[in-house]
């Protein structure tokens, strides 16, 4: 007996012949993976471009080889050391402040960045006009963020007043090396030359100012050694150093996380598509069973028949993957714009061949793996079914090859998830999550089918009953549609609900009664004046609290440095090294409640021990308890204090809340500024007060909380748009799987329709049955997905965000209506004309 070779030309010829009149259908089968491949290639290719950009342009991400930053001016000894470096130096001082635009008579919170030197050394400040980037340094003018220009319809030559000094606007700032557009949304940037900073009079004692020194080294090889020599000084003065390489790695890792996540979304689309492929090939093979049986009858060996269909799948899978890759490259063109606001670098379009080849391999691999499941049935087709139509091919669930295939699919999917996330734990968690979602959806689908069968409404009208029964008839597509539509709905609605929960939390906190305007950087000698000004507008002073900036120096006798170096310490790093803005007062606020210890409002005159009250969360993060000693560094002065009380704080109230509160009489004389909160009636009143404030107290900044809220909404919108864009791939795949499923069952539907019409059903009845069936499918899949999404949104809100989840009914209804409409629309689009044509004609043409 001849050996059967996969490469036998006759097998390929036979596969080609056999695929006649089915090629369109076969292409449709694989089209469900096209979208997933496209998403994967687009994201991967974009990610690689991003990595490459970061690698080659890390210096222009920062604009310098090295950045030193500090919250206070650089001390003499640091300046002296730096002066010896063989490097060009630039200096930047930045702080939040109010800008006043006289022509439009309006104010806005901005970030002032005073610049000295030729920064950026790499890359450019992109401005309109381009020469403005140089001119502002020479003529003492300002560069203003384009968002502000747009907001107030400003023009070049207009004046912006910062503190006591007016600046002509030299140009619009479009892009600054290393800064994402989203980063400047809350406080847009205004660049001024350093020599004009003093004239503004904005920097006063206790102001919150960032100081940066930026360097360009003649020989960057020397930098590492010089930096090492500075380590002790940096630690001593709390100076942060960051090289271009480190900054690039940081940006890369953040961007990596983002595109890793998006890749997983693409992966879900791919998985969905794979199920679509498996299901479609299953139906295809069923359709081919008579031909297969005849082939076996006339002498084809098992392997020959198997190869014929394997070749068809392979070729179609390859075509699908190539189309997916091409589509992916096309989509990639869109991504740089989509991500532009979220990334600190401009990513140019270039095709990553590695990603394209990976896409091809993954597409082909997934197509083959999932198509093999139904293809294995070919091995079991009995030639007997050529003469006996009721002979079913044996589909033994214990087929060792089938079990092996399941195992390979599970291993491949896990390996792929791990490779995409580059972390074993994340990859495994993702696969577990997907498995749970798939299992839950499948279980619900099976439960529904069982329930429909078990509690069948026999009293319903015929069309309703017939269409309902179609959900569990043999060869039904209920499971695959429930999975694809359900998963798509699940993803989209989880995203929506989570976003809604987060936003509504910020937006609806008793906003009518809450403070909505906050003024900060009020100097001690301005406190009374600012209060008077606020009251002159008939506005309440809801709070006026002093703020002292401190750091922790030691906890329970161990220095912060020691604790930081101790790997066994339970203290959270961020809590140890952060800057603490503390206050002092003799009373508790209404947002606070002492849960442990005793509230001390004023230090007893005879006490030589200092007390402090801590918030419950920080007590946990600092691993301290009542009676423990913390040493605060209040601008150079070490102040040991005993934890005397622990407060629970309601952080959701919009007002200054504090981790640490001192009694009166401890830090009252430390450098400080005040924060005042009030409530304005509307935007107009807010503008009037802010303008008056800028004129009277130029250094006092106002934060309009409504504006902040809108900005937060805008940022969340931008992020969620990207996520929605990716979730769209899942939905699109779901729709294609739906179309494929409808088309694959078309023949069966035609037969049913013909039978029904032969038995006397009118066209409308046949159509009604089909519409109702798609309605059931859409509604059940949508409901299932939504049910799961409510569960996951609740879990996210409860466990991750610590919020109460209250789903809103209206969007729920809208999403469900959309899913049902799309399912019915697409179903009917693909089933059109089934009920129109004469039975005989259809039967002859569709065979």
């Amino acid at each position: 007996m001849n050996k059967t070779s996969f490469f036998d030309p006759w097998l390929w010829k036979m596969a080609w012949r056999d695929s006649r009149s089915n090629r369109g259908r076969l292409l449709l089968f694989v089209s469900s993976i096209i979208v997933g491949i496209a998403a994967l290639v687009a994201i991967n290719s974009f990610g690689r471009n991003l990595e490459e950009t970061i690698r080659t342009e890390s210096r222009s991400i920062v604009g310098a080889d090295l950045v030193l930053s500090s919250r206070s001016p650089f001390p003499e000894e640091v300046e002296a050391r730096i002066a010896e470096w063989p490097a060009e130096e630039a200096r930047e001082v930045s702080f939040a402040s109010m800008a006043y635009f006289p022509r439009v008579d309006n104010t806005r919170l901005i970030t002032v960045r005073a610049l000295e030197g030729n920064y950026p050394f790499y890359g450019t400040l992109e401005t309109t006009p381009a020469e403005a980037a140089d001119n502002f340094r020479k003529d003492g003018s300002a560069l203003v963020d384009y968002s502000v220009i747009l907001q107030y319809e400003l023009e070049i030559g207009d004046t912006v007043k910062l503190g006591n000094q007016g600046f002509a606007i030299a140009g619009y700032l479009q892009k600054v090396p290393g800064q994402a557009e989203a980063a400047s949304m809350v406080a847009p940037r205004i660049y001024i030359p350093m020599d004009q900073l003093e004239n503004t009079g904005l920097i006063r004692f206790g102001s919150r100012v960032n100081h940066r020194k930026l360097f360009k080294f003649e020989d960057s090889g020397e930098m590492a050694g010089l930096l090492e020599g500075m380590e002790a000084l940096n630690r001593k003065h709390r100076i942060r150093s960051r090289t271009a390489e480190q900054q690039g790695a940081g940006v890369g890792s953040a961007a990596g996380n983002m595109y890793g996540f998006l890749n997983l979304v693409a992966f879900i689309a791919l998985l969905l598509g794979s199920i679509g492929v498996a299901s479609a090939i299953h139906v295809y093979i069923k359709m081919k069973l008579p031909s297969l049986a005849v082939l076996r009858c006339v002498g084809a060996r098992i392997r020959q028949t198997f190869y014929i269909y394997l070749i068809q799948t392979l070729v179609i899978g390859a075509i699908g993957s190539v189309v997916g890759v091409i589509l992916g490259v096309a989509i990639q063109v869109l991504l740089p714009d989509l991500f532009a606001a979220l990334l600190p670098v401009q990513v140019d379009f270039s095709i990553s061949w590695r990603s394209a080849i990976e896409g091809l391999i993954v597409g082909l691999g997934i197509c083959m793996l999932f198509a093999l499941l139904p293809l294995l049935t070919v091995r079991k087709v009995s030639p007997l079914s050529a003469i006996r139509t009721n002979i079913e091919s044996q589909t033994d669930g214990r087929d060792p090859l089938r079990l092996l295939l399941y195992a390979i699919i599970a291993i491949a999917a896990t390996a792929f998830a791990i490779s995409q996330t580059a972390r074993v734990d994340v990859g495994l968690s993702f696969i577990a999550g997907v498995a749970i979602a798939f299992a839950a959806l499948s279980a619900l689908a099976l439960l529904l089918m069982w329930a429909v069968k078990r509690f069948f409404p026999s009293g319903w009208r015929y069309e309703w009953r017939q269409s309902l029964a179609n959900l569990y008839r043999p060869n039904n597509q209920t499971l695959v549609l429930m999975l694809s539509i359900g998963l798509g709905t699940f993803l989209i609605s989880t995203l929506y609900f989570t976003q809604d929960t987060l936003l509504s939390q910020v937006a609806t906190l008793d906003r009518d009664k809450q403070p909505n305007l906050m003024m900060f950087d009020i100097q001690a000698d301005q406190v009374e004046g600012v209060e008077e000004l606020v009251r002159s507008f008939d506005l309440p002073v809801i709070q006026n609290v002093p703020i002292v900036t401190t750091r922790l120096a030691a906890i329970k006798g161990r220095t912060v440095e020691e604790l930081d170096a101790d790997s066994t310490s339970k203290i959270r790093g961020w809590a140890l090294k952060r800057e603490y803005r503390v206050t002092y007062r003799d009373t508790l606020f209404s947002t606070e409640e002492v849960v442990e210890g005793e509230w001390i409002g004023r230090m007893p005159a005879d006490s030589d021990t200092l007390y402090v009250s801590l918030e419950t969360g920080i007590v946990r993060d600092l691993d301290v308890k009542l009676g423990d000693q913390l040493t605060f560094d209040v601008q150079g002065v070490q102040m040991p204090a005993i934890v005397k009380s622990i407060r629970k704080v309601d952080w959701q109230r919009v007002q200054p809340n504090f981790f640490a509160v001192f009694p009166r009489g401890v830090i009252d004389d430390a450098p400080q500024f005040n924060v005042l909160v009030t409530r304005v009636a509307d935007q107009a009143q807010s503008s009037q007060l802010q303008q008056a404030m800028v004129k009277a107290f130029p250094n006092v900044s106002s934060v309009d909380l409504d504006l902040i809220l809108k900005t937060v909404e805008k940022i969340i919108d931008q992020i969620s748009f990207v996520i929605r864009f990716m979730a769209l791939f899942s939905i699109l795949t779901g729709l294609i799987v739906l179309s494929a499923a409808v088309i694959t069952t078309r023949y069966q539907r035609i037969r049913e329709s013909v039978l029904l019409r032969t038995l006397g059903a009118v066209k409308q009845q046949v159509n009604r049955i089909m519409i109702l069936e798609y309605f059931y499918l859409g509604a059940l899949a949508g409901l299932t997905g939504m049910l799961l999404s409510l569960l996951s949104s609740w879990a996210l809100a409860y466990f991750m965000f610590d919020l109460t989840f209250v789903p809103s009914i209206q969007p729920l209804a809208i999403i469900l209506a959309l899913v049902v409409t799309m399912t019915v629309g697409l179903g009917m689009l693909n089933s059109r004309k089934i009920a129109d044509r004469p039975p005989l004609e259809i039967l002859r043409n569709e065979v």
Partner: protein
Amino acid sequence: MNKSIVLRVSNLVKEYQSGSRRLRVLDDISFDIEQGTTGAIVGPSGSGKTTLLALCAGLDQATSGQVEVNGISVAGLSEDERSVLRNEQIGFVFQNFQLMPTLTALENVMVPLELRGERKVRDKAASMLEKVGLGDRLSHYPVQLSGGEQQRVALARAFINDPQILFADEPTGNLDEDTGEKVTELLFDLNADSGTTLLLVTHDLDLAARTGRIIRLKGGRIVSDELTGVADERLV
């Protein structure tokens, strides 16, 4: 005239499990078919005719007993070996034609030869189609042919590999009387020309009467096995 045995069926039993019951559909069937003869298996529905045909052609396996085709015991063969046996020794004609819908008439006829590994088979297949009167329909797909034409293609396919024995399962069952008559004529003519052994399964007693031997089945048993004399005359 001494003729060799092309099909030997000995003590053939076929049982199926139907729910909790074991159903015996063929019970101790034995007969021989000689080379070049014609025969018909007749009997009422459910008498086991098609099951017997399937077992003889190696499409199914017997519960017990033996089937030998040209001296080769079917029971000892693997699935693939049985396929090769069918390809080399057996031809089929089905009631519902069973042409592959995606293949043209010519390609349908070429398949059995191509499966043998023969590659230049186009001319042979075309001349076979010519023989059945479809020389002008080579490139037509089954849906473009009438029922009678489809059955002629099926006949061409059945005879293309010069089978030792040809099994026909109700070959005229799906055709009108006139077409059925023409197909029957063609079947017997081709059979006579090629010297193939023909075993029919049919309800049609007139058709059965045109063969040399009629085996009657009832309840899975042979109730009579008679020579008609007609076929012998025809063959001689």
